[in-house]
């Protein structure tokens, strides 16, 4: 079973995302900020990461930059899922190694089609 690490400081969002992603066959791991997420990845690199941008301690973009420098950190497919919808910031996220990008608010359909877009569903 593929694992998706859901990184978001909102417990509610993590719960919603978990339900949607479990339905399409993912095992879910959760983290509430970038540092915690990085610890997860060092222990067990997931196949996918659903990543919030604005979080305390370490934000999503910083996490992504760090992740891509880790051994095996180029492997996970990273999908941002954030209220950040400024086109320049989206470009920045893509340049830093994000594979897809979801702007909140989202629904199950958007997550599923975006995951399909990057070959995950």
């Amino acid at each position, binding site marked *: 079973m593929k694992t998706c690490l859901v990184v978001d400081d909102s417990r509610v969002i993590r719960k919603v995302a978990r339900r949607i992603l479990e339905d399409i066959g993912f095992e879910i791991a959760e983290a509430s900020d970038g540092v915690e997420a990085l610890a997860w990845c060092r222990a067990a690199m997931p196949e996918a990461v659903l990543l919030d941008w604005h979080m305390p301690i370490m934000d999503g973009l910083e996490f992504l930059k760090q992740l891509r420098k880790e051994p095996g950190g180029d492997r996970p497919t990273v999908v941002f899922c954030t209220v950040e919808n400024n*086109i320049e910031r*989206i470009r920045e996220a893509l340049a830093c190694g994000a594979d897809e990008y979801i702007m909140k608010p989202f629904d199950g*359909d958007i997550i599923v089609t975006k995951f*399909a877009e990057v070959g995950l569903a």
Partner: protein
Amino acid sequence: MRVEDRELVAQLCAARAGVRVDVEKTYLIESRLGPVARREGFGSVNDLLTTLRARREDRLAWGIVEAMAHGETAFFRDREPFALFRDEVLPTLAKLRGGEPVRIWSAACASGQEVYSLAMVIEDERARLPGLKVELFGSDLSERQLEKAQSGLYTQFEVQRGLPIRQLVRHFEQDDEMWAISPRIRQMVRWRRINLVADLSTAGRFDVIFCRYVLSSLVEPMKTRLLENLARALGPEGFLFLGRDETATGLGDAFQPVQGRTGLYARNPAFRVAA
């Protein structure tokens, strides 16, 4: 809503545009006609239909048909047809046409997502197909849908329905709360209101027709008519794309499926276009 009223709506839609309306679906009919009634200044859907019975005003009748014909749409809907278009159909036709433009028609383009998806594919393929010339057309039954399509403005929700993020940042600009397709893409498309089951002899000749999820929305007698109409508008070497679960098999002999390519059809060489 009385059954006679629902039947009136169904008859109107079938007669004018071949559109099938299930008279059992009261809620659907009411929710589609509510906005029409409000827009036309009626207190309720009942008042709208009473007036329609009294005088068959064209504008009211078409307002109802267009609202009922409205279907869902998304960028790159079902994905595979657009990959097939990019990888096989477009390069083949580009070669075949030489310097002449490849003419592509999105029939029933609704709010434009399909035809703009094709325009983005073409734009992204230009480097690989030097000298490619394309004429792109979008048509719909509904003027209101065409207006929205021409504006090229989409909500954040709409641009996340099927549109890969790299295509969003490449081909769209932010416009307050909305996303605007770039003028370069928008200007590739010409628009026209077309009723696909009416006389299409003036519609023109095309190399590719996307007519997805129309066939399945029609009443039985109009299905063959639609396909014959499309066959007349399609060049002999042209291709027709239907929706995922739609088939031309058993509906006249205008088209034959392209083997191994789901939803893709070619003109049947034996089909003679009536003068």
